[in-house]
């Protein structure tokens, strides 16, 4: 049985420490509840941008882990970011890919290729240091501490079912510009 995305996110929230997190689309509503802090920035309004936003943050803050909470449909919109990230070699970047096979937010239409799209192979081919799939929650929990300290860039494909909420059913949360300013100010305070 596919993992519940909320359970995966709960495990990440419990283990992330002071990592910067970049949720997008269907990971966003649950993350807002699980981690209501100012070290997260939700990618909304610029489709597929979570991976590249995470890259910029990881390059700017090499002393901190950056966790991208991406979706399969979202990554397909900026698939070239796999090569861009691999080329920039951010050691502190973990790219979690929530794979549910559909564009859940827009009505659960199947993504091109559906579940057959092999993101692990693509990440490895692009040059990520490592990439693998996890489809069992127990295994994910066991491996998470190592994932969160492993040298990146690392892609972890997470085979999940559909989230209970999407940005269309659970609107709200701070607007991007407010999240952005709060995150920047927090990071500048720490870096000062």
């Amino acid at each position: 049985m596919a993992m519940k995305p909320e359970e995966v996110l709960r495990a990440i929230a419990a283990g992330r420490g002071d990592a910067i997190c970049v949720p997008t689309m269907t990971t966003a509503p649950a993350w807002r509840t699980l981690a209501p802090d100012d070290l997260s920035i939700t990618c909304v309004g610029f489709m597929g941008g979570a991976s590249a936003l995470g890259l910029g943050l990881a390059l700017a803050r090499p002393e901190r882990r950056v966790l991208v909470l991406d979706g399969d449909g979202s990554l397909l919109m900026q698939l070239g970011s796999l090569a861009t990230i691999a080329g920039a070699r951010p050691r502190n970047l973990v790219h979690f890919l929530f794979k549910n096979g559909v564009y859940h937010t827009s009505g659960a239409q199947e993504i091109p290729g559906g579940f057959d799209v092999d993101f692990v192979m693509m990440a490895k081919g692009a040059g990520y240091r490592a990439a693998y799939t996890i489809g069992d929650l127990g295994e994910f929990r066991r491996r998470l501490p190592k994932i969160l300290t492993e040298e990146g860039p690392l892609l972890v494909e997470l085979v999940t079912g559909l989230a209970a909420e999407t940005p269309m059913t659970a609107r709200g949360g701070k607007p991007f510009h407010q999240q952005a300013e709060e995150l920047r100010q927090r990071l500048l305070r720490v870096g000062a």
Partner: protein
Amino acid sequence: MPESIPASLIIDTLKETFREARGGGRHEPLGWILSVPDTHQRTVLAALDKERAIRVVTCATEDEATTAAAGLYLGGEPAVLMIQHAGLYASVNTLRGLGIDGRVPLFYMIGLLSREKDKDPRESRHSMVRYCEPLLDTFAVPHARLEGPDDLELIPEYYRLAQQRRGPAAVLVGLETI
């Protein structure tokens, strides 16, 4: 008449811009260039390959370059986007979402590939040249033309403008750099 600008002058200006953005002091890298390779500015990109003070991240698309620049900004790092006009057209939604709605300062150096030396860009026979300024106007992005070495001050000026207005600003590189 517009003149080509030597790469070395542009790189010196970028270094000064980054130093000013950091408020002086030594820092490595001094700043970041997010680039999708641009024929028009290729001599600058080639010279940047040998630069240690500025780190270049080559991106697969302008969407990624713009978004990565935003991430660097959030992390407190100064960044400049070097793209081509066609790349601006390709990444308009990201410009809108991050630069306008997201209020992220984004500074672009946009190469006007195929711009005719003896024509105003708005009168170019090439649509990719002709529509660049009108597109920036549509999104209320302040812009200026880099038409020769005397215009280099526009780089720090428009970089500062992007920071001050918390949004995008651009300089358009008129002729191929040398």
